[in-house]
C-alpha cells in the first residue's frame, strides 16, 4: 500500500507542477498539459478541458482551488488505476459531451474562449443540468471533481475545516 501511495503522490507532484492554467491570460497554456508531462489516462485535450472546468467549478479563493490541489492529476490516476474499461469509456464520453456542449455555448472552441465566455458557457451547462436538461454525465463528473477536491489536504483542511481527531461530539454547534 505504501508504494502505491508514493506512486500517486509522485504523480500528483509531477502533473501538478505543469498543469496550472495561466490564471489571467484568458487562454489555456496547452503545452503545459501535454500527456508527456505525466498524464496516464487523459489525452491532451481531455486534460485541458477537465482542468479548465475544474478551475471554473472550484476556483482559488481565500482557500486553494481545484488546480492548486491537483484535482486533474488525481482523476487521471483514478481513471488509470481504479476505473474499469466501461467506466473509462463513460468518463471519456462525458468529457467529450461536455467539451462539445461548452463549445456550442462558447460560440467556438471552449479552450480558446476568454475567461468570461468560458465561465458563462459552463454556467449555462450547469443551469441546464440542474434544470432538467443535463449534458450526459455532467452531474456525475461535477460530483467527482468535487469529491476529489474535498479529499485533498487543501480541500479537506483549508476549505472544509476537516479535523483528523475531533476528540469530542457537539450535536448542535454554531455554523
Amino acid at each position, binding site marked *: 500500500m505504501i508504494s*502505491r501511495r508514493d506512486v500517486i503522490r509522485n504523480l500528483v507532484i509531477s502533473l501538478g507542477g505543469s498543469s496550472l492554467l495561466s490564471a489571467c491570460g484568458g487562454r489555456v497554456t496547452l503545452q503545459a498539459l501535454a500527456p508527456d508531462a505525466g498524464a496516464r489516462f487523459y489525452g491532451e485535450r481531455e486534460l485541458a478541458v477537465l482542468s479548465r472546468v475544474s478551475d471554473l467549478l472550484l476556483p482559488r479563493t481565500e482557500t486553494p482551488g481545484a488546480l492548486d490541489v491537483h484535482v486533474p492529476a*488525481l482523476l487521471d490516476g483514478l481513471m488509470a*488505476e481504479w476505473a474499469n474499461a466501461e467506466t473509462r469509456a463513460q468518463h471519456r464520453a462525458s468529457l467529450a459531451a461536455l467539451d462539445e456542449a461548452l463549445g456550442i455555448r462558447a460560440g467556438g472552441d471552449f479552450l480558446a474562449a476568454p475567461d468570461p465566455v468560458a465561465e458563462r458557457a459552463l454556467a449555462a451547462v*450547469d443551469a441546464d443540468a440542474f434544470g432538467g436538461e443535463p449534458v450526459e454525465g455532467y452531474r456525475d463528473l461535477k460530483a467527482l471533481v468535487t*469529491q476529489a477536491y474535498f479529499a485533498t489536504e487543501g480541500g479537506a483542511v483549508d476549505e472544509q475545516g476537516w479535523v*483528523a481527531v475531533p476528540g469530542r461530539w457537539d*450535536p*448542535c454547534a454554531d*455554523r
Partner: protein
Amino acid sequence: MADFDAIVVGSGMSGGWSAKELAERGLKVLVLERGPEIVPDRDYTDTIPPWERPNLDRVPEEEIERHYPKQYGGVAYAIKETTKHFWVKDDEHPYEEAEGTRYDWLRGYHTGGRSIMWSRQAYRLGPQDFEANEREGVGVDWPVRYEDIAPWYDHVERFAGIAGSAEGLAQLPDGVFQPAFALTCAEEEFKARVEAAFPGRNVIPARVAHITAATEEQRALGRSNCRVRDRCEHGCVFRAYFSSLNATLPAARRTGNLTLVHNAIVQSIDYDPGTARVTGVRVIDAVSKRTRTYTTRVLFLNASTIASAMILLQSASEAFPNGLANRSDQVGRNLMDHVSGAGASGLIAGFENRTVFGRRPGGIYIPRYANITEHDKPYLRGFGFQGGGTPVGAGGGVAGIGRAFKEAHRAPAPWRVSIGAFGEQLPHPDNRVTLHPSRRDSWGNPIAVFDVTYGDNERIMLAEARKDAIAMLEAAGCTDIRSAEVDLTPPGNRIHEMGSARMGRDPATSVLNGWCQAHDVANLFVTDGSFMASSACQNPSLTYMAFSARAANHAADLMAEGGL
C-alpha cells in the same frame, strides 16, 4: 492427557469472550483462528488521512469483479482500498445458493473476525424476545428467560464499554452504560414530535460499543475514549471500540493461559463414542496445508453461525451420521438474519444555522413498539429503526459554479432525518445451510450451499414499517419526504446470521441446551449466533457475548466439579 483444557474455534466477537472467560478461570486455552494475524500497528489504517488514501479509497473495479463481487455487492460502504484486507476474497472462499435464492455471506477471516468491521450497535434482547416463540407456537421455546442472561449482559457491557442512555423501556432493557452520544438538535426535535404523536414510540440515542468514560480496567488494556473520528472500519489505534483484538484477546493473553494459533482451519471434531465426549479437533494449516490434531477437555465452537454449523456437519461419524450433535437434524436449519429495505427520510426545518462537530459512531434508535405498545398489527413480532438527523452535505450535488458553488458546501444547510427498519425474521427449518455434496474449497472442505427465503410475515412487516416511517416523518413536520418502494435486503445482508444450532428444551428438536451445551455431547459448546432460537430485531452481537461468557463460566464450573 489432553493438549489443552479448552479449545475455542474462532477468535471473533464470541470466541474472544469464550477465550477470555475460560482463561481467567485458570484454564489453558487454545484459540484456533483460520485467518492470518492482524497486527494493529501494521494493519490498522485509521490514521491515514483522506489525501493519502489511494484513488479516493476506492478498490479498483476489476479487482472487485475478480475478488469481491459478493462482499462488495453486500457492503460496498465498508470495502475500501484501505479496508479490503479485512474481507475475504470471494474467489478463494466460494459458496453456492439454491436456484432462485440469494444469500449474502459477508465476512473476514483474521484475528478478531468481524468484531473488527462491525458497526458496534449494541442492544439487549428484552423479556418478550425470550417468550415469543412459546407464546406464538413458533420454532422452539428458548430454554432461558431474560432474568437468566441479564447479569451476563451486565458483565459484558461493563468490560466492553457501551455508550448509551438509560430509558427505562421494558422491551429494550437498560444496561451498564457509559455516557451516550447526545442527539443532534434535529433529532431532539424529531424525538419530541414523534413521542407526542405516538405515545408508545421512543426515539433514543443509538447504543454503541464505544468507550466514552474509560474505566480502570479498560485503561489497563490500553483502551481509551472514542475520539469521534468515524474511522472504525479501519481499526482503531485508541482501541476505543470493542473488538476481540482491542479487548477480549488482550485480556485473555495477560492471564498467561492463552495460546492463539493462526491459519488453523478446523475441519472436523473428533468424537469418542465410548465416553460420549469430544476429544479434539482436526486442523489444516491454511498456508502449508499440513494437517494435525489438537486434543482438549472441552470444546467451544465460535467460528460464526455458518462455519460452526458446517464444522458439525463435517464431523459425521457412525454415532452421528447426520453430523456431530445433530440427532435433532436441526444443525444448519432455522437460519435467520434481520430484514431491512424499508425506511424514509425527510427535511426538518429550523436548524439551518447549526451544525455538528465530530463524527459520532451512531445516530438514533427507535426501539420496537409493534406488538409491544401497539397491538393492531397484521404481523408477528416487530422491528426497530436505526437512523439519524444531520445537516445535508452539498457533496457536489448542487447547482452553481465558481465561488458560489464552492461556498455552498459550507453555507447554511437543511437537515435531513433518515430512518431504516431492522425487522425480526421468524425461524423456519427449511431456511438452511448444507454441505455441497461434491464441491470442495482449496483445503478440501465442502463449500456451503444456502437455501434461505423470507416468508409472508417479513414481507408484510416491512411494508408496514415503511408506512410507519413515513407517518413518523410527517408527524415530525418533515418536508421533501423520500421513501423508496420496499425492497427487502437479501438474507444474510444484515450480517446478523444466526440460529443454525438452536437451543431448546427438547433434545429431539434442538441442538443445544440453555447453556449453549450440546444436548448429545456434554463437553461441546456452541456460543456464536448458532444458538439463537429466535432473532429478535436488535443487533445481536451483545447477546452472543453475554451467552458466550455465561457458557464459559458454566463450563469452568462443571470442570471444577468434575462434571465434564
